[in-house]
């Protein structure tokens, strides 16, 4: 017989069948899916909020520049993905924000 190794198996469901197998760390640590909400704007890179052009309650058009996020030596424009009213502005000028941080909510 080949080397007998004692192993702990877990279950994996594929195509309506359940298999006993070892789940890799990469599989177990995969990011769960979260449905994106159209009006939520997240930072795409850590950086500093350099300038905010809008106020809470203000109406914005799709494509309008909302604020400037300074990162990687560039003044990155954060742009409105939809038209609507600014519900919340979660940052103020000079704030250091991490990656994927919620900065503005539009409805």
């Amino acid at each position, binding site marked *: 017989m080949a080397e007998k190794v004692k192993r702990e198996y877990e279950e*994996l469901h594929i*195509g309506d069948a359940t298999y006993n197998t070892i789940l*890799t760390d990469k*599989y177990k640590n995969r990011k769960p*899916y979260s449905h994106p909400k159209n009006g939520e704007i997240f930072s795409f890179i*850590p950086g500093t909020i350099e300038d905010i052009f809008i106020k809470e309650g203000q109406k914005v058009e799709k494509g309008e520049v909302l604020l400037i996020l300074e990162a*990687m030596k560039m003044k990155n424009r954060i742009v409105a993905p939809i038209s609507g009213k600014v519900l919340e502005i979660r940052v103020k000028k000079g704030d250091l924000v991490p990656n994927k941080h919620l900065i503005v909510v539009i409805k």
Partner: protein
Amino acid sequence: MKSAASGGGDKAIEKQVAMGKMTARERIIALLDEDSFQEYDLFVEHAAKDFNMDKKYLAGDGVITGTGTINGYAICIYAQDFTVAGGSLGYMHARKIVKIMDHALKLKVPLIGINDSGGARIQEGVNSLAGYGEIFYRNTLASGVIPQISVILGPCAGGAVYSPALTDYVFVVDKISKMFITGPEVIKSVLGEEISMEDLGGAKVHAATTGNAHFYAESEQECFTQIKTLFSYIPWNNKQKAKGYPVKQPKSRTYRVGSIMPSDAKEPYDVRDIIKALSDNSEFFEIQGMFAQNITIGFARINGETVGVVANQPLYLAGVLDVDSSDKAARFIRYCDAFNIPLLTLVDLPGYLPGIDQEHAGVIRHGAKLLYAYSEATVPKITVILRKAYGGGYIAMCSNHLRADFVFAWPTAEIAVMGPEGAANIIFRKEIKEAADPDKVRAEKVEEYKQKFANPYVAAAYGYIDAVIEPKETRKFIVHSLEISKNKDIQNPYKKHGIPPF
């Protein structure tokens, strides 16, 4: 002569040893056959003039280049010397490397690069970048012509790390190898994210997570042994076949091929045991063993001849195909095709891994690479279907339709569009829904489907399987197939090159 050969001087050498690393010269002597190393360009001096560089003497400009033999094979080698200006790459340093790369390409011998460098020599400015560019160009030109391997025995950061990425195989050593594009300090200052060098780009990270490294060793000596083993399996250029060895039988007392597979189709087993039950002396040289473990690739000898083995590994993730495993297998298939190594494929997979993260990561695009690689390969292709082969997975794993030369199936093979459970649920959906006892009817229908389709005979009836064989006959069939495909000669349609889904 003495000062040129002593690298950066005693103090620098002490520091290198204190870090647990061998010096460049020691590495070459340890790796190559005894007394076989011939050095070139020992007296090359750097060409920098700015920043008081003209007052500094850098022995060999930080790199040792030359030719030698490994197990009697002629090879070209360069080893960066960390004791000389941190092994940084300057204009003449790059010139030396480029010269030995040109030699290797001209003479059609393998190229080994030992990387141990702080990166570009900033004092030499754009000349360092020019040096890297010339190296990458030659890595690309030589790709598929001569075997190129990179041994990362120190830091390899920034632009420099693209040279190993372009070579065929990357060897890393625990706690010594470091590979990343931007280091922890830059990441901290620009992005504010903290991580240690080892966690960012250490040997384990590349062997297990990124897939950049193909071989992982705990010590430099172990790494050199791995390199020598690799060279025993591969040819020295793309016009040769790998060296044949005297035939040895597999260790049938430890690996009896018929007894490895469990009788329950949902239970896993280690496919490497099956490979060792078929290979000469039960030896299997696994590649990327810690990455994408749901597929197993590596070299083995059958009947004295090197074969490249690609096998689904039911031990991990039920042996499914996904983004990483498709990448891993596809590149290996192309390597074997480039260097005249026949391919042996062992199939046992329930399909592709379902999941939003897989879909969004592009499993479509990456899975297509596997189909492309198998279809394009013109080396002899032998497939053995061990157990499950459902749907797209059946096609992708070197089926008859991708022009496998020989497709065999064990009696335990289940070749179907999908598993019995899934198929019965769809085909008999109405019956199950309208039944008084749906679960009972479902179980009956699953059994009915299993009897009818979960076997190799339906596919065999159409000639998609060449033969249904007993497990204990497998080696005999593979040996015979390899024998008669020695002169296989087919041509793909003329093209400059295809456009695989990179």
